[in-house]
């Protein structure tokens, strides 16, 4: 079975299918190629219905034209309503002025006639002369006949068809080639529709569109550009005519296209008149339209009102043309003012019916597919390719009347016959939403490149693939927006401020008077006086503590129970700065121990400890006539921190090898060789261990590292008042690591009072009390000063 592939979708279809069953594209061209030997005549079958019957197949736009024409037809006698001015002038000119003689033809036409080889030119010129003569003879006498088609209408119609065909053809057709009948729904009418639609869109102001502007904004640019191009084409065409007129004119071998169209129109007119005369009138479709429009259907009637036919010029324009030097009334084409003619020509929207500008779906016209096999090369042409001036088209009154009404669409109070424009769904889906380039810059056609290779060779304005891919394009995005975090932004701002501050000139600093820190000096002076006053003056005198601390009992018990044959280890782990406090506190303990005759062995984990021990022991032991090496010995510095304490606790002799300030009559090389240490091999061999410390670290180290090696040897702590709270847990626990605590000068004074041996603690008691009292008064004064200032500022602020 033979198949025909659809040119659009390439799918197979049956051979006799008219349209593609898949995509709906027409498979067979509308314009069927005719044999060249047959004249172009309207294809109307024998059983063609009458005009009334054919009215059912008439398009809506034509029906509306007819209806409108019937309604506005004032009287049947009048052939046409008031037309445009140029048309009125044309009518009056033809009736008043005879025009060129019928038997005379222009020189250029005569030359053209002579140049014609065949007799076809003579025939159509003869027919033209004959029709002109008949029109001149019957113009004043005969009334219009309704049943006859006016000759002018026929000529105009034929000229329109010829013109449409002319500029739609890329190349001029050979003479004698038949032209198809311009029937409704044919290619010519469809193209005319498109042309009118484009003209309407270009000329109609956007504000008169019944559609919302926001919905069709994206189309506005296209319409404007299309209208601009259309206007440019018309301008170019209009400019071409003077160029032709400035040439040799009639003697020019190349005549204007529109004149060739005119010739072809004449031929077609003559050929169309023959069957019409035989059938008794014009074709039914045209006759019906003319009849509905109230126009004279007879050619004789048309001659009564001579109007400029195809190829004929407005006499009024001819009057304004340069004077005829020959005086024959023949036009000198080279002297014509083409610009004036261009201006006098009515716009297209006035001569074409408005319905022609309606969408095909509204006009109920059959859609013409974009691609027509066989006919595309002949009939499908772009308007730009033809030398056709839309403004130069002269249309009859019925078309003028029909086209004139929609011109008042924009007037308020009048409704448009057009349905409100709605965007189809498929077009709505294709509408661009947002673009950074709302207006697409389209190059003029003249500047567009011509495809040189491939199947599209020779076409202009073909979308090129290479430039799209290879040419650099502007970025579709505005630019990469720098995305930074708030922290980065803050750092950037900080850096910016720093740079700005560096650029700023620093103002000169005011050198103000320096305030004397009198408060600091005053407090220092008060404290100094308070400390020095008691020893210097003996005043004030502070009472010694009457109450004995409960911590002194265990300590005194430990010292009293310590064996005198075993030395007591005293650890001096405090800094020289605390010697004023701890000297007095530790002095009370040493005084008690020496009073009982307990040998004292000193050691220190600090480099400054041995000299402190040396001085304190010498000071305390001086009343007891103690001797170095016999009543006391200094082992010196124990380096190594906690590890050294652990080592000393585990193996004292291995931790300290020699000693400090050993007596000159030392029997050996080490302090361990002295008789006082002869029986000491480990920590538990000492009678007691007393740690004098200011900080908590040294006290904790001895309590933690030495306690496992003490055995039954008691461990007591001599501390400053500030370190007492941290050591007290070791003393008050269920398994106490510390057996006694002596902390602070008050406890030392109480200890001395209990022992009955006043020492440095009691000697410093008044100074201690005086300085503490001064500090108390200063703090109280500070509290009063602060509160008073706050109240004063509050009152000033409130008042």
């Amino acid at each position: 079975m033979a198949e025909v592939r659809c040119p659009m979708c390439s799918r197979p279809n049956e051979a006799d299918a008219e349209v593609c069953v898949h995509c709906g594209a027409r498979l067979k061209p509308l314009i069927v190629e005719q044999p060249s030997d047959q004249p172009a005549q309207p294809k109307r079958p024998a059983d063609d219905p009458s005009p009334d019957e054919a009215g059912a197949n008439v398009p809506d736009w034509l029906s509306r034209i007819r209806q409108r024409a019937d309604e506005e037809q004032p009287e049947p006698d009048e052939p046409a309503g008031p037309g445009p001015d140029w048309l009125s002038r044309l009518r009056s000119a033809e009736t008043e002025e005879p025009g060129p003689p019928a038997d005379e033809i222009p020189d250029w036409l005569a030359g053209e006639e002579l140049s014609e080889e065949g007799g076809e030119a003579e025939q159509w010129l003869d027919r033209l002369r004959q029709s002109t003569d008949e029109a001149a003879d019957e113009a004043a006498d005969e009334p219009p006949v309704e049943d006859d088609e006016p000759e002018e209408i026929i000529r105009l119609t034929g000229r329109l068809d010829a013109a449409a065909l002319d500029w739609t053809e890329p190349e001029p057709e050979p003479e004698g080639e038949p032209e198809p009948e311009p029937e409704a729904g044919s290619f010519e009418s469809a193209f005319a529709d498109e042309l009118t639609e484009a003209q309407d869109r270009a000329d109609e102001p956007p504000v008169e569109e019944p559609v919302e502007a926001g919905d069709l904004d994206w189309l506005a640019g296209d319409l404007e550009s299309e209208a601009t191009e259309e206007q440019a084409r018309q301008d170019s065409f209009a400019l071409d005519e003077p160029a032709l007129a400035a040439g040799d004119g009639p003697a020019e071998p190349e005549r204007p296209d529109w004149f060739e169209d005119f010739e072809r129109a004449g031929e077609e007119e003559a050929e169309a008149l023959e069957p019409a005369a035989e059938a008794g009138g014009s074709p039914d479709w045209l006759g019906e339209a003319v009849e509905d429009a109230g126009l004279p259907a007879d050619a004789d009637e048309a001659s009564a009102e001579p109007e400029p036919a195809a190829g004929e010029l407005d006499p009024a324009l001819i009057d304004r043309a340069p004077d005829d030097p020959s005086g024959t009334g023949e036009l000198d084409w080279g002297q014509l003012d083409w610009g004036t003619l261009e201006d006098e020509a009515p716009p297209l929207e006035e001569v074409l019916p408005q319905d022609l500008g309606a969408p095909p779906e509204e006009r109920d016209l059959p859609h013409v597919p974009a691609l027509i096999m066989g006919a595309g090369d002949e009939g499908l042409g772009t308007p730009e390719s033809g030398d056709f001036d839309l403004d130069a088209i002269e249309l009859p009154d019925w078309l003028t009347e029909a086209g004139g009404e929609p011109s008042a669409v924009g007037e308020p109070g009048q409704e448009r016959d057009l349905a409100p424009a709605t965007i189809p769904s498929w077009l709505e889906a294709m509408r661009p939403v947002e673009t950074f380039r709302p207006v697409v810059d389209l190059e003029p056609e003249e500047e567009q490149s011509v495809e040189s290779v491939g199947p599209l060779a020779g076409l202009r304005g073909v979308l090129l693939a290479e430039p799209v891919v290879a040419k650099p394009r502007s970025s579709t995005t505005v630019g990469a927006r720098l995305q930074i975090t708030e922290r980065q932004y803050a750092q950037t701002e900080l850096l910016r401020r720093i740079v700005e501050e560096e650029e700023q000139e620093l103002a000169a600093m005011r050198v103000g008077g320096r305030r004397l820190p009198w408060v600091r000096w005053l407090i220092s002076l008060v404290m100094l006086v308070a400390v020095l006053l008691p020893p210097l003056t003996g005043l004030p005198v502070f009472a010694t503590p009457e109450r004995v601390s409960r911590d002194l009992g265990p300590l005194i018990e430990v010292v009293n129970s310590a064996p005198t044959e075993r030395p007591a280890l005293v650890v001096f782990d405090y800094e020289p700065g605390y010697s004023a406090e701890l000297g007095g506190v530790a002095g009370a303990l040493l005084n008690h121990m020496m009073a009982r005759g307990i040998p004292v062995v000193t050691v220190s984990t600090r480099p400054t400890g041995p000299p402190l021990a040396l001085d304190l022991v010498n000071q305390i032991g001086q009343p007891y006539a103690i001797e170095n090496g016999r009543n006391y010995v200094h082992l010196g510095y124990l380096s190594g921190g906690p590890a050294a304490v652990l080592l000393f606790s585990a193996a004292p002799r291995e931790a300290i090898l020699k000693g400090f300030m050993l007596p000159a009559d030392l029997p050996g090389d080490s302090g361990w060789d002295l008789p006082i240490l002869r029986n000491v091999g480990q920590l538990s061999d000492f009678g007691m261990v007393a740690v004098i410390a200011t900080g908590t670290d040294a006290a904790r180290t001895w309590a933690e590292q030495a306690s496992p090696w003490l055995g039954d040897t008691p461990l007591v702590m001599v501390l400053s008042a500030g370190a007492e709270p941290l050591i007290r847990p070791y003393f008050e626990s269920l398994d106490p690591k510390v057996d006694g605590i002596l902390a602070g000068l008050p406890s030392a004074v109480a200890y001395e009072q209990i022992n009955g041996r006043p020492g440095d603690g009691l000697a410093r008691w008044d100074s201690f009390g005086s300085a503490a009292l001064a500090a108390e008064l200063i703090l109280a004064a500070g509290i009063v000063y602060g509160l008073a200032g706050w109240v004063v500022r509050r009152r000033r602020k409130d008042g």
Partner: protein
Amino acid sequence: MKLGSYVVWAAVATGTGILVLLGYFIEVDLLIRVRLLLIQWAVLLAAAALLLGLFNLLAVHWSKVSMQDDGWPYSALLILFFLVTLVLGLLFGPDYEVVLLLFRYVQVPIEASLLALLAVSLTLAGFRIFAQRRDLLSVTFMGVSLLVLIGTAPWPFAGDSVLALAVSDIRAWVTQVWASAGARGILLGVALGAITTGLRVLLASDRPYGD
């Protein structure tokens, strides 16, 4: 990670720690001797570290003097007396009379004066504290300070009064209850931190000696 060095150092640290730790629980003569040996090595290392610290101190101040940085004269004095003391100590021993003289009449008064300045500074800060801020913390701080100071220091008169005894008791209650409670919390935290650190070192999860 270099497996060899890591394993060696971790094994040394873990083994040493375990041996010393076992010495607290197991009384074996060999174990005690090994532990004492390790502790002696640690003491030697600590002494060497102290010596390195002294050289580092000398280098830093020498650099400041050579670079003429701010306060370089003080660095020069430090270096001078450091060298003098070091030479005297190395030549004549730490119990040399000149060294003891320097200690008694230079170092001890200086350090005692610093603590005296601390007492004056604290008193001045207490004087200004109410002028700078008057919030609850400041009031509490000043109240407790005054209370402990009044309860500790002797009264110029009426030292045996009921008020003085009451203040003394309040002071003892604050220092032996509130302060001891806070101190115990601190000690417990230190103990837990020490245990955790010891276990981490024993398990080689914490390697202060490096990988």
